[in-house]
């Protein structure tokens, strides 16, 4: 199991642009969206990190930007890493798909597309998942549904 500092050093070696948040529960690395795929590929194949299990993939709407959040874990060493990418383009948000690396990402990504409207490049089957095609993106903060949602 790698500790926080060792993992930080390895990620810095792979990706000098990565930024790290201070004082968080888990180690968080913020990487530019266009470099996310190559970094994750390295982190998965490298024998020291071996982050082969994607626990979760989700997104958060901070009204000014979207953050896509990846929770990764190594099943051999049991260290965890949170990867984040910021998408500032609200009109046409897009990021690379990780389906090639983690098959489970295909479904998490479809859910994020369904709820936030974030497109995933190179995704094999990016369609609405839970909702109808014309529903809008309900987990965006500017989503309004006068009929079904009660404002507090």
């Amino acid at each position, binding site marked *: 199991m790698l500790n926080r500092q060792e993992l930080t050093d390895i990620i810095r070696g792979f990706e000098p642009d990565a930024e790290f948040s201070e004082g968080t529960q888990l180690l968080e690395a913020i990487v530019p969206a266009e470099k996310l795929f190559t970094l994750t590929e390295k982190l998965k194949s490298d024998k020291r990190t071996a982050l082969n299990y994607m626990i979760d993939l989700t997104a958060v709407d901070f009204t000014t930007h979207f953050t896509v959040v990846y929770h990764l874990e190594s099943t051999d060493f049991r260290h965890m890493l949170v990867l984040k990418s910021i998408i500032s383009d609200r009109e046409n948000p897009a990021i690379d798909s990780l389906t090639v690396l*983690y098959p489970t990402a295909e479904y998490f990504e479809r859910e994020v597309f369904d709820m936030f409207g974030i497109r995933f490049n190179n995704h094999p089957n990016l369609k609405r*998942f839970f909702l109808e095609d014309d529903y809008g993106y309900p987990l965006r903060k500017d989503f309004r549904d006068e009929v079904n949602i009660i404002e507090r």
Partner: protein
Amino acid sequence: MMSEEIIKDVIIGENEDYIINLGPQHPSTHGVLRFEVCLKGETVKYLIPHIGYIHRGIEKMCEANTYPQIIHLTDRMDYLSAHMNNEAVCMLVEEALQVEVPERVKYIRTILDELNRLASHQLWWSAFGMDLGALTTFFYGLRDREHILDIFEESFGSRLLHSFNTPGGLMHDVHPNFQKRIKEFITYFKKKLPEYDQLLTGNVIFQNRSIGIGNMSKETAIAYGVTGPSGRGSNYSCDIRKIAPYGAYDKVQFNEILETGCDTFARYKVRMREMWESLSILEQLVDNIPEGDFTAKMKPIIKLPAGEYFKRVETARGELAVYAVSDGNKSPLRMRFRTPNFSNLFVMNEITAGHKIADLIAISGSLDLVIPDIDR
């Protein structure tokens, strides 16, 4: 006149895809789930799960509710692991506020976890036998599950969705009969559990229908994020109770159940052995519940400090991870539930392709899917 060739095409699906819909109201899916199954004769070529029939937008509802209110929503995800779902949110709030809960609370929560796991596995065993044509299992399983539900009813007033946890502890103290009833149940169920094996495990028809069906390698399980007993049937060590102990799990001796068979029967055996393990955990805890308060002192209005929090627990079906983003208000900015059944479902195509359509029922039964947990 219809030529013989056309009939052959339509019925057997030799030359084109023959697609049928299994569900959304098929009894073996245990809920509203639709499999779009492509067949060649009786063999499954591929399968696409369609979900969303019971989507209630729990994650969106969380953004308008306070943390104590959210606990009541989590019951409705995996209703057979209601207690574990509650506990995940409670522990997330407690860790964020750095509240130390009393030892008594930890012990009672762990006991309830295991009782809930037992009740869930009993219902799974009942339904799994029934899926494969052994109708008697349904009566045996439900008869014994009543005993656990009675314990729940006596202490919390509800049998299935008992939102008994609150941030910081429990709603109120348990009933004075609590320990006595659990001990009675352990003695009772220890006699009944071998009957389960006699009835179903050794049955030749059952074994022929489950051994070698739905092979899932360890690599597939990790790649698709399959956790819980379904993952452990593929020799994948993924028990959160061992990886990151919570509650009183660090104070008891128990084994993580692993099977190397990788098939439907291996997943069956994991759950059967887990029932024995749960009984052993209950035995170790039930006499040692410390005296003390049933809740820690909490502020009347709970506001999490701005930041991000992550907590995971082992439910009866696998890993439940809760991810909350707080901006310092009494409602979260974003609440995300990584539910075990969502990930477990999508391995279906991988492990069903090439098997007969009747095996599809066995495989989906062995994954123990709860549909509201997939849709949220």
